[in-house]
């Protein structure tokens, strides 16, 4: 296997398990009505509950339950209609209650599976151990004052889903593919926006190494990694570090480590002496969470088509290549855009336009599909004009650029700029006659057997008509007129 690493003492295998923390898309926090918008002024989205005031009690946000169930269904996981919220006790200044409400022994979602797609076109199934709901803590800000720490409680109480994988990944690439796939699924479901840079998704990465076939090695947990690239760097660094220690005869400490993006290395976060005993116990302020199978089925009925099904359909029904299918469905917004373009049209043509000119324009403007100045329907309208012969494919590329700048429909631009293809035989014949009359030598060449000259004639006509002539028609007319 290519994932094995050659060491001095033989081959090594890296074993990776991930805990992905995904912020639930919801207007309100997990146990309070406070808002959750990103980037709000510090401590402006804090309820009495989030601030841990005396006598305040948590009340579960039903939206968060629905979103967790939805996510569980999207991860092909078992939904537990009975689950329990526990308190995870520890002291920190940004944890107002002195405990985090989480789910420990009885999570809302059990085992599931995620199929990840690797660069070589292969795919692998990665097991999901569980998904549970928990509160986020607030934020400690250490760099505003030489001796003081500021606390922002806006995130305190925000609903997170912790999605725990099985230790099924064997390379940084697989780990990256897993996070991308989980993120795509959650985005399709609308349960997490997946914005890692805003902190709505982050991962704790468990890494250990072993000789293939051995029992699992001791793992290090790298906390709070907030980009896929960093995660992969951290895995690479950690793999090498652990192999070096083991090959030098040392042992791996089971510890929590931090990734330093500046140096690309990891370092221990807490010493053993401070190892936490979280004293989990069921939160007596909350009753066990129970819901019916009907509740689950009602949510299942509203699930959108997810990436794996989409891929199947794109290939089988739309005739796309696996590569095209993969590119178009990797992000929900792209897939939605593509489907708007492809509906009622040739899917391959639609796929080419989306992946080709449209992506190029987006890239140049540094925009995401969601921010595109034109809609999928508009791009579809452009393709329709090519199909019905109103404009040529070449003109269409220019029209798309103009659409992108103005946001106008293709038809409007073609009309206003007079870009309609000239398919009027009479008008074209006039132009052709003029060119033939002025270029007797070329005519002679053609008639002498130099068939290639035909292309020169067509080019002249296209130039004379500023590209608006219907190329096929010009070709045919010129050929007829040049016949001796």
């Amino acid at each position, binding site marked *: 296997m290519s994932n094995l690493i050659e060491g001095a003492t033989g081959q090594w295998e890296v074993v990776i398990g991930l805990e992905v923390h995904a912020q639930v898309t919801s207007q309100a926090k997990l146990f309070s009505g406070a808002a959750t918008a990103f980037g709000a002024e510090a401590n402006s989205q804090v309820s009495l509950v989030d601030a841990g*005031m*005396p*006598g305040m*009690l948590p009340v579960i946000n039903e939206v968060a339950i629905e979103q967790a169930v939805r996510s569980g269904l999207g991860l092909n996981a078992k939904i537990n209609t009975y689950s329990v919220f526990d308190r995870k*006790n520890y002291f920190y*200044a940004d944890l107002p209650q002195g405990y985090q409400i989480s789910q420990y022994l009885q999570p809302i979602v059990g085992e599931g599976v995620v199929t990840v797609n690797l660069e070589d076109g292969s795919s692998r199934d990665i097991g999901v151990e569980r998904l549970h709901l928990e509160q986020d803590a607030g934020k400690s800000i250490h760099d505003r004052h030489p001796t003081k720490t500021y606390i922002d409680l806006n995130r305190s109480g925000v609903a997170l889903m912790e999605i725990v994988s099985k230790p099924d990944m064997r390379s940084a690439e697989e780990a990256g593919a897993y996070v991308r796939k989980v993120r795509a699924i959650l985005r399709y479901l609308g349960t997490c926006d997946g914005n890692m840079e805003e902190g709505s998704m982050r991962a704790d990465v468990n890494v250990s190494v072993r000789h293939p076939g051995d029992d699992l090695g001791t793992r290090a947990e790298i906390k709070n990694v907030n980009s896929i690239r960093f995660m992969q760097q951290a895995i690479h660094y950690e793999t090498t570090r652990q192999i070096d220690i083991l090959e030098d005869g040392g042992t791996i400490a089971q510890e929590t480590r931090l990734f330093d993006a500046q140096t690309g290395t990891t370092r221990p976060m807490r010493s053993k002496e401070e190892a936490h*005993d979280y*004293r989990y*116990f069921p939160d*007596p302020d909350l009753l066990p969470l129970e819901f019916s199978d009907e509740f689950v089925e009602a949510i299942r009925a509203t699930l959108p088509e997810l990436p794996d099904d989409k891929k199947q359909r794109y290939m089988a029904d739309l005739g796309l290549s696996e590569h095209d299918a993969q590119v178009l469905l990797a992000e929900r917004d792209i897939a939605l855009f593509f489907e708007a373009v492809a509906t009622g049209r040739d899917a391959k043509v639609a796929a080419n336009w989306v992946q080709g000119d449209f992506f190029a324009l987006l890239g140049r403007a540094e925009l995401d599909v969601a921010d595109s100045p034109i809609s999928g329907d508009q791009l579809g309208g452009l393709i329709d004009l090519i199909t019905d012969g109103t404009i040529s494919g070449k003109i269409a590329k220019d029209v798309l650029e103009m659409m992108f700048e103005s946001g106008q429909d293709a038809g409007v631009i073609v009309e206003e700029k007079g870009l309609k293809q000239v398919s009027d035989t009479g008008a074209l014949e006039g132009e052709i006659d003029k060119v033939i009359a002025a270029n007797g030598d070329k005519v002679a060449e053609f008639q002498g057997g130099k068939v290639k000259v035909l292309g020169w004639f067509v080019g002249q006509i296209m130039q004379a008509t500023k590209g608006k002539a219907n190329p096929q028609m010009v070709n045919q007319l010129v050929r007829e007129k040049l016949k001796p």
Partner: protein
Amino acid sequence: MADLTEIGIAEARDLLAKGEISSVDLTAAHSAATAAAQPLNAMVTETPELAKEMAAASDARRSQADGGEVGALEGIPLAIKDLFCTNGILTTAGSHILDGFKPAYESTITDKLWNAGAVMLGKTNLDEFAMGSSNETSYHGPVNNPWRVKGDDRNLVPGGSSGGSAAAVAGRFAMGATATDTGGSIRQPAAFTGTVGCKPTYGRCSRWGVVAFASSLDQAGPITRSVRDNAIMLGAMAGYDPKDSTSSQHDVPDFEAALTGDVRGLKIGVPKEYVLDGMPGEIEALWQQGIGWLKDAGAEIVDISLPHTKYALPAYYIIAPAEASSNLARYDGVRFGLRVEGKDLTEMYENTRAAGFGAEVRRRVLIGTYVLSAGYYDAYYLKAQKVRRLITQDFRDAYETVDAILTPSAPSAAFAIGEKSDDPISMYLNDVFTVPANLAGHPGISVPAGLSKEGLPLGLQVLAPAFDEETMYRIAGVLEAAAGFTAEPEKWWRSGS
């Protein structure tokens, strides 16, 4: 006019309705009595100005109401246990750690009381974070029981943790008081002070805005002078609160209407496990007296067994501290209350909590932390939860055959201040009859039923199935009538002795 502090809520309600007295006068009499009762140390905060305003507003509502609807407690002056958060008014939970804490919110219970027209006299003293059975653990000092042994001027404890509330009602300076009961903190002080104290079914009264001790056990209830007053006051406190996930959606019945005086045919269980070795003979005698009264009233007495009773107290002293250790983690000096600086965050926590919590609270936080720790959780916390289920099942089984249960409220009369404060186990034994109902979540009430040889009040407890406070009140009313308990403490505190 007669002394307005000598009438009860029901009587005052009628006099107010007839316009014979005003809330302003009624409240003024109680505020004055409160001020005069400072030697009892029953109040942490007195709010006479606010009381006057609220009373005037109540009188104004009544005059505008024009015979229309007024609140169930319109114009009635009450004292509030200082565990209930009151908007803008110091709320201490009897602890140093809440120094200067004035909540920006009002607890659901007090909010309901004010909406029912009640008037606030002030906040009552209590054991720190409601942890105690004698009111001696309060940072504000012990509360003195209005009752004393005749001819003996030693101060006695009023019971706890709602000692201030019980003293205020017994001493006739509040017509009623809110209280909370986690293991007996309403019923035991009621028994020690000759008042009526009810712990309703868990979930009857919202816990929102009540400083938490042990969330799965805490339940608010009223302390009053009579069973009728109690039923009236609970009616105003009870009800579903969407802000408390453990609050019950059961309809709130008209508790007062349950006081029919008729217990004929009711089956009353007498549990053999409540006969304790070394229990004073007068407690046993009082119990027998209660059994006799109910028999005479036509009830049927049934001997029952609650086999797991002896495990209740140990299970309670695992579960309650476990929850408390977590509930009290928020008192960390970061956001409100006391802060004692340190060289770093950890030291600030240590300094703040060491200075802010008293010995009993520290003891329970330590016990609770221990029983939840890795390696001990299964042996202590988990086992205690199993015991709790068995105790609940005991009650359910019993209620298959009986309608209610009669027991003593406490194993003794009030004891002297300092008598048990060095002996936590003996102190914890005070709650032996009350704790099981908390573990099961069932309602219970203590009714004054007689006096000890030394002239101190003794109470009988009526327990009932979950959400059957009506049967509980009906039986309590019959006991009250039969006992004819009219004794009052001498107001020694007014003479400055």
